[in-house]
């Protein structure tokens, strides 16, 4: 930017600041000599946004949030936040909160009472319990997710519960399961303080996990020597800080990982001792492959990996062979500590399970595993994708604590714990998210057996891929009923038949679990607006309404209400009556019940009270001899993990091969389902930006964030723009085989994609890029690939507007 540009933009800044609403204008400067902080009470809560799990201190005065402070006692963020976190206190204060239940009558959403709303839902469920599905997200608190799972699996006897996390980190789950036999990272964020090398695999933490990124990066400011390797498909803010940038053709990251493994073996620089003692080898079966695959011996594995020479990898991925060698040299050096991090790039991938497994494999093979700063970790985008969706198990195939619907002994254990008759929990795994919405979008006589979906804490109208076919279509069909609980109007509430106003964040009690197995707790601090109510209460109230209407399976084996709760004097508390909901701490009751499930898979949780005191604790949390509760930083590592016996060094005690070994996988490179061709010559990648969180329903209503990033855009390469006659700021039409979108071009802006590739963020409800994206998904995780499909681009036709 030259000086003239700078000054011109300064003038524009001043002008547009006057136009857009200013949060500051509503505040006057206080009289001299006053102390505005007097009367402000402060209380801890995890941030409402991403999976980092920063703790904030929420300042409340006269029933309203007035300030946020980074919590200096929090181990995750150590007194820092990102710009979203600093402004999270503004999230509840958009002007258009939903405050009353709304029912669609003659095409219009009209206010009704909560009592009427509960009857509407109960009727829909009673009419066809098997056609009902509950769809949530990693924004469910742990008790909400637990109530949802119990409601569906014990109360309705189906497994029709899914969560947006399927679209977000399901391939990370299958990667962990395939490698360690059990879900979730073995390592933790402490790696960021200790690693010599940080490798980002298709990841832009400078924008998506800024606090974690700085935890690593700021070590440089303190004089430490660190190396950042960015393996990506476009230049991002993270690239700006990287020492090495390896740009690969979309989808070919599997070849890069295979190339590194091939060199480690060929050069003899792999960790022979670690591999011999702690690893086994595995590959997918030739026909009908499964997540467990089949065991193969080291020689067979070596032979298959050996095909991926640096030259072949260069051919597939476009990364120069010398860069593959350099990466292999890093991994071949055991004096270094190497931490790998990834997020959506590896997860939203039709070979997501493969690339997740292969990156774990690179670390295991090279012995960069199990030391502080030395290991692989996946990052999550939702605050409780781990705590709720993965650990509680709000997915069609899971039961709480990582137990499985498919295992009869796990079903029986859950039935005992829930005190429901044997056989209540169905052994039929329900439809995963994409399939669930596909069936919701089909008429009943064409296999569309899902007729009612209740959405909580997520916005599928904006986030489902190929949205015309996988969301909008349902709105044209008779007999399909969409219930949506949310805090603001969204694309999903606007399409709904019934809208329920929800309480959010510190308007209710809650618990989250972040990406490093850290379970966190907070208390309600302010009242929700109008008739907005807790999502957990909504589930309990619907369950009770069904109970009252004689729906037999809402009773336990003793005939009591499935969510029967008593006060300390043994009297039943009518938690379904919102006026009485906070008579007891429902969160604590549900959590204590859920906690019983956590020991089966060694995900042990402490009593609720321990989390009240802590800024989160990383499971497994076990009681020590002196009665204190001890968290775990590194799983499967002696001296760190309480379940690894002395003398073993490492023990993968949930091993798929049942011999305490981790699995190093071979997956061949396979091409993606849709690649650019003559008709659709560009790659489209979608993703996020620093200022906005997911579909933007909260952050677009926070003025400082909205002003910094007011709308979505398309990034494209300068040369492509020139060739197509597209100027900076032009309206561009992006078109795929599924849909199109007209959107502003931003050349050399926030990120720089290579030639032949464009990027669009998905936060803007006005610019729904998911009309264009592809619904194809990974065969094991069922997670769709939002990162690549084929599109064509041109200047938008005259008269087009966003």
């Amino acid at each position: 930017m030259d000086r003239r540009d700078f000054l011109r933009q300064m003038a524009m800044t001043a002008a547009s600041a006057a136009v857009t609403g200013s949060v500051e204008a509503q505040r006057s400067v206080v009289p001299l000599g006053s102390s505005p902080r007097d009367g402000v009470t402060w209380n801890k809560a995890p941030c409402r946004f991403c999976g980092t799990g920063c703790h904030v201190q929420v300042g409340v005065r006269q029933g309203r949030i007035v300030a946020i402070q980074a919590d200096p006692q929090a181990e995750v963020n150590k007194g820092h936040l990102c710009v979203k976190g600093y402004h999270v206190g503004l999230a509840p204060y958009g002007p258009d909160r939903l405050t009353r239940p709304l029912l669609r009558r003659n095409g219009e959403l009209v206010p009704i009472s909560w009592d009427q709303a509960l009857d509407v839902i109960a009727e829909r469920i009673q009419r066809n319990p098997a056609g009902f599905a509950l769809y949530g997200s990693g924004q469910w608190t742990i008790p909400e997710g637990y109530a949802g799972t119990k409601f569906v699996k014990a109360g309705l006897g189906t497994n029709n519960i899914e969560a947006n996390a399927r679209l977000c980190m399901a391939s990370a789950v299958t990667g962990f399961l395939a490698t360690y036999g059990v879900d979730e990272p073995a390592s933790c964020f402490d790696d960021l303080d200790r690693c010599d090398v940080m490798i980002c695999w298709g990841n832009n933490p400078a924008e998506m996990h800024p606090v974690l990124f700085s935890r690593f990066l700021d070590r440089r400011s303190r004089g430490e020597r660190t190396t950042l390797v960015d393996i990506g498909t476009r230049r991002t803010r993270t690239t700006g800080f990287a020492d090495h940038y390896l740009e690969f053709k979309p989808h070919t990251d599997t070849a890069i990982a295979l190339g590194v493994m091939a060199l480690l073996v060929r050069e003899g620089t792999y960790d022979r001792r670690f591999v011999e003692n702690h690893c086994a080898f595995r590959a997918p079966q030739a026909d009908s492959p499964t997540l467990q695959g089949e065991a193969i011996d080291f020689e067979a594995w070596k032979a298959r990996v050996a095909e991926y020479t640096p030259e072949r990898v260069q051919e597939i991925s476009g990364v120069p062979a010398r860069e593959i060698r350099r990466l292999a040299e890093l991994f071949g050096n055991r004096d270094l500590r190497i931490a790998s991090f990834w997020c959506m790039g590896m997860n939203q991938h039709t070979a997501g399970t493969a690339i997740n497994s292969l990156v774990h494999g690179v670390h295991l093979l090279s012995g960069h595993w199990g030391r502080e700063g030395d290991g692989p970790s996946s990052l999550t985008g939702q605050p409780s994708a781990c705590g709720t969706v993965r650990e509680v198990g709000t997915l069609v195939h899971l039961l709480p604590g990582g137990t499985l619907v498919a295992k009869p002994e796990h079903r029986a254990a859950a039935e005992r714990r829930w005190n429901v008759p044997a056989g209540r929990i169905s052994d039929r795994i329900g439809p995963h998210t994409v399939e669930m919405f596909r069936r919701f979008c089909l008429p009943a006589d064409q296999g569309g057996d899902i007729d009612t979906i209740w959405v909580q804490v997520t916005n599928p109208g904006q986030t489902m891929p190929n949205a015309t076919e996988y969301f909008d279509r349902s709105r044209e069909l008779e007999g399909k009923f969409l219930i949506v609980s949310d805090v603001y109007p969204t694309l999903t509430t606007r399409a709904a038949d019934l809208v329920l106003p929800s309480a959010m964040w510190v308007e209710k009690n809650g618990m989250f679990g972040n990406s490093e197995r850290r379970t966190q707790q907070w208390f309600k601090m302010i009242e929700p607006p109008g008739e907005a109510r807790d999502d957990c209460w909504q589930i309990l109230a619907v369950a009770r309404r069904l109970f009252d209407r004689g729906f037999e399976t809402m009773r336990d084996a003793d005939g009591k209400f499935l969510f029967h709760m008593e006060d300390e004097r043994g009297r039943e508390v009518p938690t379904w009556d919102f006026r009485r909901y906070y008579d007891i701490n429902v969160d604590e009751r549900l959590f204590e019940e859920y906690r019983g499930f956590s020991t089966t898979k060694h995900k042990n949780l402490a009593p609720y009270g321990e989390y009240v005191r802590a800024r989160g604790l990383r499971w497994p949390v076990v009681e020590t001899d002196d009665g204190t509760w001890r968290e775990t930083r590194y799983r499967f590592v002696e001296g760190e993990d309480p379940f690894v016996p002395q003398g073993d060094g490492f023990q993968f005690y949930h091993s798929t091969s049942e011999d305490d070994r981790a699995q190093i996988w071979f997956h061949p490179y396979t091409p993606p389902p849709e690649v650019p061709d003559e008709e659709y010559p560009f790659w489209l990648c979608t993703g996020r930006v620093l200022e906005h969180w997911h579909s933007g329903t909260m952050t677009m209503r926070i003025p400082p964030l909205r002003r910094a990033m007011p709308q979505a855009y398309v990034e494209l390469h300068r040369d492509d723009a020139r060739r197509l006659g597209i100027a900076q700021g032009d309206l561009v039409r992006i078109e795929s085989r599924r849909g199109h979108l007209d959107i502003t071009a931003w050349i050399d802006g926030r990120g720089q994609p290579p030639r032949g590739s464009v990027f669009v963020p998905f936060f803007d409800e006005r610019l729904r890029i998911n009309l264009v994206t592809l619904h194809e998904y990974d065969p094991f995780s069922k997670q769709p690939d939002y990162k690549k499909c084929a599109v064509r681009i041109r200047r938008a036709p005259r008269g087009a507007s966003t």
Partner: protein
Amino acid sequence: MSDEEQRTTSDTTSSNGARVVPVVASAVLAVAVIGFFTGIAPAPDAAFELRGSREVSSDLPRAPSHADLAAGFAAQAAESRQLAAFGAMAREGRRALTEEPPVATAEEISGALALRQQRRAYDGAPPRVPHPMTQTGSLDCVACHQDGFVLEGRVARMMSHETYASCSQCHVEDVHSMPSAERASVGGPPIDTQFVGLEAPTSGPRAWEGAPPVIPHATQMRERCDSCHGVLAEGLRTSHPWRQSCTQCHAPSAEYDLRPLAELGPIGAAP
């Protein structure tokens, strides 16, 4: 600004271990002193409008280039701050010894607080950036904000905390530099928030008249007091900028910093 424009003529080498005051530091001193005499912070509402000719006169000191920064400009920060403070002392020193130090008027304090409030959602929020920013990750910000300076009546504030690398993690553009922004104002969720943020304190309590006031705000991320109270700060400026160890006399508050109080027990309780 091109590199050439930015490049300083300074030679920052030392000889025989003797400390050579670099020209860069002198430049900062010069800016500070000139700024001080000519009145530095503009009125809040005029803070960012264009005024008159924007040609930089040739006798103004040049901003340091990235190369200068890499050559240790940051390390000289404390030194240059001290030099600036000595400049202020040179001007006010006699008076400081014999007279009451100058005190900002209520209007000056209110004006300074109003200016601060324009860029923050609440007291303690990271200020937003009133000019376009480089969109890609880099350290450009520290070129101006490491120690702050005044140029043509505009103050680039010194950062209030130690140097962190990823500035845009917390500080975002107040109004974006995205092209065709007029489209962005059409439709979308409403932006008129109902949030009302915590106001800034106006003064710290004193134990008795004449006692040094305690710090009335959190000091977390505000450990460099001269960011807001140094010689570049109008209204909130200290009356004695040459005193460098602020917390010698002005106590921070463990309560405001949200340090654990439970472990300390009630203040004044018997041991």
